[in-house]
């Protein structure tokens, strides 16, 4: 149907108007199904959870009195919750900075080699694609105090067997190191892809003028890579913040809650101790914090790149 034909014919005005209406909103035919599902599986659960957090709901009892913000207060004054919040912060800070430093270093070094790049990249991709639960179980075996390869290796250079996951002083950093092992390749992969798209001209002229390489890095590489760096940091931050799988199989939060993350603590609160509404309050707090952090990072990112 053609627009000018339609407007010439007054008899068709109703159907034409309908046609134009559907044309103007045709995108909704394509988008609506996906959008409805997302509303049902993301937005509704979050609203539901917010509702639950304002009542006292347990799996055991049918009575559900309204308690206002009491659940939030209880959570914020709960030592175990605060401990797991602190641990989560620890994971975010050390896992993100560790994986970022290693991944960035690997990406910079990668530009300096020629042969075997494809193979090196392929090997480094492996941890990213492994299920975190498999990574955790594998490192449990590596770190076993009796027959684990790490202790066997330490034994060869004269260090006695360690129970790194069972000691409060070493468990947290050990889990973080395993997390870094799994995810620094992701930072590497993202930054390496970003570097491959950088223009060559600024580098060549800088080299011709004899600019030292650390200055080239600071003045050329770093500014041009900024959006890529932000994306890598953003992804690592939100993933470290939600850490669950690895800790669940490696230490299950112990010893003495030293490795307990927020996800793990809230899971236990809801499903082991059946305190559903407190866990809901905690998860809403978690959502607010990660929402704030990623909103700030997104703002910086939007300044760098045009999204959507």
């Amino acid at each position, binding site marked *: 149907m053609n627009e000018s034909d339609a407007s010439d014919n007054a008899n068709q005005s109703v159907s034409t108007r309908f046609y134009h209406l559907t044309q103007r909103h045709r995108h909704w035919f394509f*988008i609506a199904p*996906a959008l409805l599902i997302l509303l049902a599986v993301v937005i509704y659960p979050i609203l539901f959870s917010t509702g639950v957090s304002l009542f006292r709901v347990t799996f055991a009892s049918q009575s559900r009195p309204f308690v206002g913000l009491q659940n939030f207060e209880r959570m914020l004054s709960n030592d175990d919750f605060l401990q797991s919040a602190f641990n989560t912060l620890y994971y975010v800070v050390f896992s993100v900075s560790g994986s970022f430093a290693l991944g960035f270093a690997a990406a910079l070094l990668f530009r300096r080699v020629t042969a075997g790049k494809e193979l090196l990249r392929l090997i480094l991709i*492996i941890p990213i694609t492994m299920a*975190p*639960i498999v990574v955790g179980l594998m490192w449990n075996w590596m770190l076993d105090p009796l027959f684990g390869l790490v202790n066997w290796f330490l034994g060869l250079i004269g260090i006695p067997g360690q129970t790194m996951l069972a000691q409060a002083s070493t468990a947290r950093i050990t889990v973080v190191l395993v997390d870094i092992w799994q995810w620094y390749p992701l930072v590497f992969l993202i930054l390496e892809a970003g570097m491959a798209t950088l223009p060559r001209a600024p580098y060549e002229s800088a080299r011709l003028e004899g600019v030292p390489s650390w200055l080239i890095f600071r003045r050329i590489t770093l500014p041009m890579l900024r959006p890529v760096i932000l994306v890598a940091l953003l992804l690592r931050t939100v993933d470290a913040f939600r850490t669950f799988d690895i800790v669940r199989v490696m230490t299950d939060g112990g010893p003495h809650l030293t490795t307990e993350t927020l996800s793990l603590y809230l899971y236990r609160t809801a499903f082991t101790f059946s305190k559903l509404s407190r866990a809901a309050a905690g998860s809403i707090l978690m959502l607010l914090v990660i929402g704030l952090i990623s909103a700030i990072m997104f703002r910086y990112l939007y300044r760098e790149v045009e999204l959507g």
Partner: protein
Amino acid sequence: MRVPKSERILAYVILITMASLVLAPVLAGSITAFKPQIIWVSSPPTWIFEPTLENFEFVFFTRKGWLYLRNSLIISIGSVALALILGVPAAYAFARFRFRGSKALMQWLISLRMIPPIVVGLPFYAMFLNLERTFNIGLRDTYPGLIITYQTFLLPLVIWMMRGYFADLPAAMEESAMVEGYTRLGALLRVVLPVVWPGIVATAILNFIFAWNEFFLALILAGNRTSTLPMTAGTYIVRTRVEWGNLFAVNLIIMAPVIVLTIILRQQLVKGLTFGILE
């Protein structure tokens, strides 16, 4: 880039060390899956032995591993299929139509990537329980229940990845098809989809990997009937004794298909992992 020889050698040494540290635990662990039970734990580790498949046999048949493999396949393939059916048309609309709010909607879709799974997992459990009690609709421990739940992380990714692939194609393609009498939907199905096929495959593979490796939502919402492979891996650790050979057999069953798929996908991997933000 021209690099001094000494610098290049240093780069090789460090990168090869990194690659070895990545590969060593994976390989050392994986060969345990082929060790007979008496040498699962031995110190120093046994490197030379007669490889056996008895661990796989035990895991697969005695411990019903084939059932969990089947569950994992049904849930992963099912949820990816649903995400594609819902997400591909939406991605097409985002790539082709300019409309108010399209940008905000796309940004909202990325923001879903930031939501910790506990935030949706927790209410899902309670909602499923409510549905069961009130309407007698059982979704807990069922395939549809998990397939729907997995849309929280699959659907946004499908839309973002596919939007990129659609945007790479010239709009003239469907326009000329529509001049020839195809409707918009007909042009999408008959003309565009056959060309964008490799993008769909890449999207499907990456999403399959995410669904396949998923542990947290399955832990909350699956049960005896729908346990997935990652859920069963942990069951080989008992306080008193860890069945390492069997455990690594399960690990290998989880890892092997993903590694094969990754090799197929490797050119598209970064684009997918970063939601194609960095175009």
